[in-house]
């Protein structure tokens, strides 16, 4: 196991380097006139920075390869640069914001699984019955409903009908855990429901595959109860690929969090990035971009490792 973890970590290095190049090149596509735009839009030039200072603050006055190496060197030392607006280091702010997004993501994932697993398993057990049909139509419909529409409706209609609206003043988890969880519940429900569609379909497909295998037939033949056959024998094996899906959904989850954070004004990474885009705060955009990519990679690594813990067949390969 130790050697396997090490090998996987080493395999991550080239991907990380490529990802950092993608981040770097994407942001470095800034054409010259954007500098002017930044100067005129933000009034940075007026009181804070001159054009040349801005260019050198962005590091645009050096050759590309040198810019990359300098930036990468700083990143490796934990320096993601400084915001053009607030003089706080980007890393500091990212670390402040990351827990909000992670909490939202974890809650949404838990809610998504709580919806998807029972329905997916039921749907497979009762294949082609009206119940299965309803569950399947529901999941296809969920795939089509944009989460930002659901979020908008959650903001608008309860307020009109019952005068209830989600709390927009963010309460930190460390200040009041209960209030914080209550506040996160509605956004997490919106995000989790939209995520559950894919998991539901996947669970159903995997269950159907497992239910047709010989050992399930043996379990039935032994006269075991349906509950035991399904819970003890089928679900455990069907869930392994579903765990991979959690890793695959990590990017979707973070992408969704950007929109949900904007609707419910949660101060996470998504809102941070949007604010940075609106203020054209490139060091912040680069920093968030990189941290998001690395987080997704680490989540996928953890998922792959847990795969080995869940399934003895994988462990010995």
């Amino acid at each position: 196991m130790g050697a396997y973890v090490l090998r996987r970590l080493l395999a991550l290095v080239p991907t990380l380097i490529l990802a950092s190049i993608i981040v770097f090149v994407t942001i470095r596509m800034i054409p010259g006139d954007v500098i002017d735009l930044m100067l005129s839009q933000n009034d940075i030039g007026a009181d804070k920075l001159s054009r040349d200072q801005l260019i050198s603050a962005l590091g645009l006055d050096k050759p590309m390869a040198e810019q990359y190496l300098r930036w990468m060197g700083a990143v490796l030392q934990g320096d993601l640069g400084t915001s053009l607006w607030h003089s706080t280091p980007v890393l500091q702010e990212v670390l402040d914001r990351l827990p909000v997004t992670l909490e939202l993501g974890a809650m949404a994932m838990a809610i998504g699984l709580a919806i998807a697993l029972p329905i997916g398993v039921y749907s497979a057990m009762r294949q082609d019955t009206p119940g299965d049909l309803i569950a399947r139509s529901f999941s296809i419909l969920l795939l089509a409903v944009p989460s930002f529409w659901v979020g908008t409706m959650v903001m608008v209609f309860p307020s009109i009908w019952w005068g209830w609206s989600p709390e927009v003043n963010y309460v930190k988890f460390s200040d009041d855990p209960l209030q914080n969880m209550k506040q996160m519940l509605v956004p997490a429900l919106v995000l989790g429901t939209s995520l559950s569609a894919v998991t539901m379909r996947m669970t159903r497909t995997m269950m159907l595959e497992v239910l047709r295998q010989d050992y399930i037939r043996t379990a039935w033949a032994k006269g075991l109860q349906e509950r035991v056959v399904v819970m003890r024998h089928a679900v455990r094996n069907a869930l392994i690929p579903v765990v991979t899906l959690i890793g695959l959904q990590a990017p979707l989850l973070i992408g969704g969090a950007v929109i949900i954070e904007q609707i419910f004004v949660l101060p996470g990474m998504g809102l941070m990035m949007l604010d940075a885009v609106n203020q054209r705060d490139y060091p912040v955009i680069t920093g968030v971009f990189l941290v998001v990519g690395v987080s997704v990679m680490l989540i996928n690594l953890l998922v792959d490792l847990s795969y080995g813990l869940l399934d003895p067949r994988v462990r010995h390969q």
Partner: protein
Amino acid sequence: MSGTASTTTPVSAAAPPARGPVRVFFSRLVREKPVGAAAALLFLLFVFCGVFAEVLAPYGYNEINMLERLKAPSWAHPFGTDNLGRDMLSRCLYGAQLSVIIGLSAAALATIISVLIGLLSGYLGGKVDMIVQRIVDAYMSFPELVILIAVVSVVGPGMLQIIGVLSLVLGIGGSRIIRSAVVSARENMYVHAAQSIGASTGRVLWRHLLPNIMPPIIVLFTTRVGAVILIESGLSFLGLGVPPPAPTWGGLLSGSGRTYMFQGPWLALAPGLCLTVVVYATNVFGDALRDLLDPRMRGSK
């Protein structure tokens, strides 16, 4: 396997009155996938609304009428009016036009990019494949929306930028599907035969491989249309898509309009419903297409 082959082949082989593959396909669609056929009709209706928005819309998309502001749905304004008295039905129809333009062109471009990357990477294999796949890996570890937001922050919002960026990002992501189709197709006898009579790489790719991986390409394109429409509306919702006054569906739901939704809740309903119905129709049609054209991909839904 041989037992099932004998029962399935006559269906496709025996069709004595020479019917084109397209007609055969549509009759199969209607017969075997009635829901998919209905979804296809719904999708065509959406394209029709988009193409003829100028003719169908009773008002202009930016026609302000302060006397009629925030009117609830009525016969004169079936979807109601917004805070400037603009007819929501007309705005949704013009929104459909933008969605048609962006959806179809970005999905087409994305598919072309996927095919180019997938063909080269899958067919050439070896080092090229390994390098290309690592780049695709790295790319896919970023959420699409986050890449799009970062790129839009650089190129700025606008229709052409959105089409370009969406097709590039989705094109790289989709190349996986094409690559796996190429990898399995390249071991076919006809490919080896073409190689052994000295056909050039380009000829093998264009004349032999491409026609044989058309089913996954068509399916990819169809599902991409829905994905593009959904992501574009997300971007417009965040104010990073096609800038106002263009009435994109996502933009109609965005923050600036939200303040008026408390007085006119119909403002929140129409654009969201349009989006859901269109994306639903493309998804269902895409699933039906996949089941009919490409049985191998059936498990992957």
